[in-house]
């Protein structure tokens, strides 16, 4: 297998899915009507409800859904099961489920007066769905933040060449916010300066490698070379499990990342969160674009770069830790979430994008088109790790992406630096946003019961402390899989709402209903498997060894898993009842209230 074939397969998937399947559903089932008024035109207010050109909205929606998710998922899945299962799930997932979820969430909102998913659920299913969504969203964010901080701290500790670029990225992000919102400098010159300086710092990161390496050594010598915490990590020693050590340098970088995230969480969004994400987006987009083009032409220019080096299939149930199980079904389907299907897209699409749809004919290119474009990002991540050298997953990804980029004449050392940066930058900038959203969610959810949580500093610090506790379990792969499960459950919930709505208006619901059943069953099964793995592989070894923090962290993760299953059961039962009610008597469904009276 080589990269050209995979890129061609991706292109064919996108073409056939869009032109054959998605368009047919849009015409025959949804029957989108360009003459019908959309909420954006009916309730135009110039901000939330604003008719927007489809091409602008496509770019906006794509950027809103595509970043770190599709990259990390593909890396983990290819490492565990090989590239073939990951490739098949990416292709089949996006073709039959992913686009349908994103597109349908937009359709649901547009056809229901611009109401969000929870408002539709409140009307068609049960009022408690909104409360259950709080549970999903908070734990989704907690698990994701834990996974990302864990990945970031270990990569930053091991890769001192990336530090200069990251420091400059943060400084340039702050400068960009000042330039745009205070000094009123145009976006193009501000972008050129800030992205240019960040890129230069990233590419020359290896020049300062020695300085940061000596910093790491100095930090580690403070404790006489002894680790701060020791824990059992089932992902070490080729997934057989071994003792892992948290050195002072890792704690130092975890604290630096936490401080950065804290600032991103409490400062005004224009001051830090938004401009830092923007600069990071350019770095990653540039690397990905060069990488995707390199993967396409690599077969002709540098054939040795485009050959897959990892096994196509690593087994149905690869070993991960001494006792746990990692069966391909259901675990692969939650390990790769974004890129194949994602619940967050539906949530965002139903409020952010749906209210800007100018005309119903735009729902398909914006909703399905963005998801199919994100699939290509996931595919590139998979290709990068498939051609990368052996080693830790992130390093293999960076090496693979660096190889693709080097096809364009950039020296391999610089290209690999860019590959590392593409990964680290996007994970880092998204992590600060996650803490920002966690802080808001925590305040909204529990602020009434526990008033101190209304203080943004208290809510931010609690969110960060919870994430750090999860990091100390040392098993970000399990965290990632639990996050994927929470995400996929949200996707199943969104597809369930679409199915119920289609039944309530007497339309054919199969295109959403069948994927919903698959995602629901798969996701609940995967949570149970992950809870078992956590108990056997992490909680028990650490508890027996008397390690309080890792045992507490993994115990917390098992509790989260149980909570997610309980929430899923409630949602499933409510959805089942609502579906049968409307399926038998479609006219009995209450009509949507206008979002604005």
């Amino acid at each position, binding site marked *: 297998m080589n990269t050209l074939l995979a890129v061609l397969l991706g292109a064919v998937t996108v073409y056939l899915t869009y032109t054959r399947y998605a368009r047919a559903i849009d015409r025959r089932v949804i029957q989108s009507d360009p003459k019908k008024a959309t909420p954006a035109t009916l309730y135009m*207010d*110039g*901000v*939330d409800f604003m008719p927007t*050109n489809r*091409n*602008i*909205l*496509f*770019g*906006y*929606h*794509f*950027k*809103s*859904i*595509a*970043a*770190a*998710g599709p990259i990390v998922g593909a890396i983990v899945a290819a490492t565990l099961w090989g590239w073939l299962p990951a490739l098949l799930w990416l292709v089949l997932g996006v073709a039959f489920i992913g686009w349908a979820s994103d597109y349908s969430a937009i359709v649901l909102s547009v056809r229901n007066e611009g109401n*969000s998913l*929870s*408002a539709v659920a409140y009307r068609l299913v049960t009022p408690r769905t909104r409360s259950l969504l*709080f549970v999903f*969203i908070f734990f989704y964010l907690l698990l*994701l933040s834990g996974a990302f901080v864990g990945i970031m701290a270990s990569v930053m500790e091991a890769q001192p060449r990336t530090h200069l670029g990251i420091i400059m990225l943060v400084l340039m992000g702050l400068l960009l916010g000042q330039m*745009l*919102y205070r000094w009123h400098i145009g*976006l193009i010159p501000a*972008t050129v300066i800030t992205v240019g300086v960040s890129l230069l710092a990233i590419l020359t990161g290896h020049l300062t490698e020695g300085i940061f390496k000596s910093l790491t050594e100095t930090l580690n010598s403070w404790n006489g070379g002894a680790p701060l915490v020791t824990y059992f990590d089932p992902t070490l020693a080729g997934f057989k499990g071994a003792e892992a050590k948290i050195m002072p340098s890792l704690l130092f970088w975890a604290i630096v990342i936490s401080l950065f995230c804290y600032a991103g969480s409490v400062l005004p*969004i*224009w001051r830090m969160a*938004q401009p830092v*994400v*923007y600069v990071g*987006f350019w770095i990653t987009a540039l690397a990905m674009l060069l990488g995707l083009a390199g993967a396409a032409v690599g077969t002709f220019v540098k054939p040795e770069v485009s050959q897959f080096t990892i096994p196509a299939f690593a087994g149905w149930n690869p070993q991960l830790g001494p006792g746990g199980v990692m069966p391909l079904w259901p675990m692969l389907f939650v390990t790769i979430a*974004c890129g194949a299907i*994602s619940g*967050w897209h539906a*949530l*965002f699409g139903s*409020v*952010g994008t749906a209210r800007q749809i100018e005309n119903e004919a735009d729902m398909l290119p914006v909703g399905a088109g963005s998801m199919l474009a994100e699939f290509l990002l996931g595919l590139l991540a998979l290709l990068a790790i498939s051609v990368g050298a052996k080693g830790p997953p992130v390093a293999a990804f960076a090496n693979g992406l660096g190889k693709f980029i080097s096809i364009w004449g950039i020296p391999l050392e610089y290209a690999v630096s860019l590959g590392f940066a593409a990964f680290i930058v*996007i994970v880092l900038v*998204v992590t600060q*946003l*996650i803490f*920002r*959203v966690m*802080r*808001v*969610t925590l305040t*909204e*959810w529990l602020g009434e019961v526990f008033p101190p949580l209304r203080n943004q500093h208290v809510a931010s610090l609690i969110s960060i402390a919870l994430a750090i506790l999860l990091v100390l379990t040392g098993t970000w792969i399990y965290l990632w899989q639990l996050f994927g499960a929470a*995400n996929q459950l949200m996707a199943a919930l969104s597809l369930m709402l679409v199915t119920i709505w289609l039944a309530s208006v007497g339309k054919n619901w199969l295109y959403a209903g069948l994927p919903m059943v698959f995602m629901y069953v798969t996701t609940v099964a995967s949570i149970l498997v992950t809870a078992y793995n956590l108990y056997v592989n992490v909680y028990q070894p650490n508890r027996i060894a008397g390690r309080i923090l890792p045992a507490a962290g993994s115990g917390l993760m098992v509790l989260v898993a149980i909570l997610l299953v309980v929430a899923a059961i409630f949602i499933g039962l409510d959805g089942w009842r609502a579906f049968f009610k409307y399926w038998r008597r479609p006219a009995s469904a209450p009509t949507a209230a206008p*979002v*604005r*009276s």
Partner: protein
Amino acid sequence: MSAKGKQGRRSSRRWAALKDFFYGLTGYEFVRHALEMRREAESIFMIVTMGDLLGVPVLPPVYSLRLVPYVVPDIVAWKRRMAIRREFWEKDEYDLHGI
């Protein structure tokens, strides 16, 4: 129209679409956020000057009346905005790009 003219129009349409796409990918979020910030500032101004309409008297009516001609065009939209129940993830903090 000649074939060359048609081709030219088609390519200029594609170029415009690409430009729009890049604008959506880059600058559009800043524009939206600036609009959101302006709306927040306007809402505060409106509640200070026209709070009586919602039962929140802040400014004595004599001063509010002098401002009426300037704020009349925005009153309907402002009252709607105040009345709407927002979901918790519709706040600007939820502009969470890329998950």
